[in-house]
């Protein structure tokens, strides 16, 4: 189990996780911020 964890939690894999999460943050927070719909009346 420990060996498996050591094999998974390498520096490269951890950096890949960080980079993947950064990509998620970028994808979400750069989404369009214009109004979803325009209120016409009431």
């Amino acid at each position: 189990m420990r060996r498996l964890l050591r094999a998974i939690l390498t520096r490269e894999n951890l950096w890949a996780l960080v980079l993947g999460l950064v990509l998620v943050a970028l994808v979400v927070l750069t989404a369009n911020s214009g109004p979803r719909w325009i209120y016409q009346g009431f």
Partner: protein
Amino acid sequence: MNPDSMSARNKGQGIHPLRLLAKALIVFVVLDLGFGLVNTSGLGRISAYNLLFPGRERFPFGQEAAESYNLSLYNLDAMFASHVLSAGGNPTGEFRVLLLGDSSVWGTLLQPQETLAGQLNAEGLVVCGKGARFYNLGYPTASLMKDLMILDQAMSYRPDLVVWLTTLDAFPRSAQLASPIVANNPARVRDLIARYHLSLDPHDPALVESTFWDRTIWGQRRDLADLARLQVYGLMWAATGVDQAYPGTFTPAQRDFPADASYHGSSGPTLEESQLAFDVLAAGQRVAGQVPLLLVNEPILISSGRNSTIRYNLSYPRWAYDQYRAMLGQFARQAGWPYLDLWNAISPSQFTNTEFHLTPAGETLLAEKVAQAIRSPSCP
């Protein structure tokens, strides 16, 4: 950052750039698709409102986010979580009153304290021995289905009274699913249709269906961004009390009209009751259960300008509105609903940019009339 030390750290660590990039992309794809597979419907309930900063006095809504520190979103959970209604529990001694309605209740062009809810709260009413606290659950667009959807969720906050302000434009069947917030909550709509056997098509093309791809992170990125931005704007709400962009000037509601007596494609003389969603209104009573429900026909601008003998205002020809009033009164009598017909309670000078939106003074008058009706309910 020193590239040499970075280089020294990486030496022997075996980080290959292309492999790193590939793995990161895999992580992204797994998270993206995984998001589409799990049920993320509860995400909207995670909120910093009523925790780090106060809840909003009315539902988030806005088109100029940078000026209003507000935005429109479709996630009802997030809308409720950001509302002061979710501040927690039902404080002892509070007579909780929920106000349902459209943009006139929400308070277009009004500050939070100038809205109907704000003015009623300022009156400091005592009802059934408890201080009455009014919560603004109005939301722009006229649709009984929209109100029903909000009421259905709001009942979990254990109100003592619900005041439902409505008007003719909320009744046509064609209007029920046209409201964007209704159209983008198809699951809730279908559930309500099924539970209360409403005469609406659960597969109406107006309902925005989401595919698996729409539910991934990529597909939902706009919704997720809005959830995050709503939290950040909460700081601005707390710091400034601003939740709406107020234009310097506005075009007053029209008082002169063309000689046109049509309403939703019909020129009368009969307003078909079957084309009006009274079943949705009736379902509201069942949703409210034991909680008393006060129905209010909200004030409209009654013009005396050109062709005002044909039309009360830009929205309503006289023939349609008069018949609607009669139908609504009869409905309330038959259903045993307390009913307040305030259609002509406010003078035309107290309307702003539409035939429904009132000035602060107009809202004060309206609040007085609603307060009178509330002062003596049947207390448990």
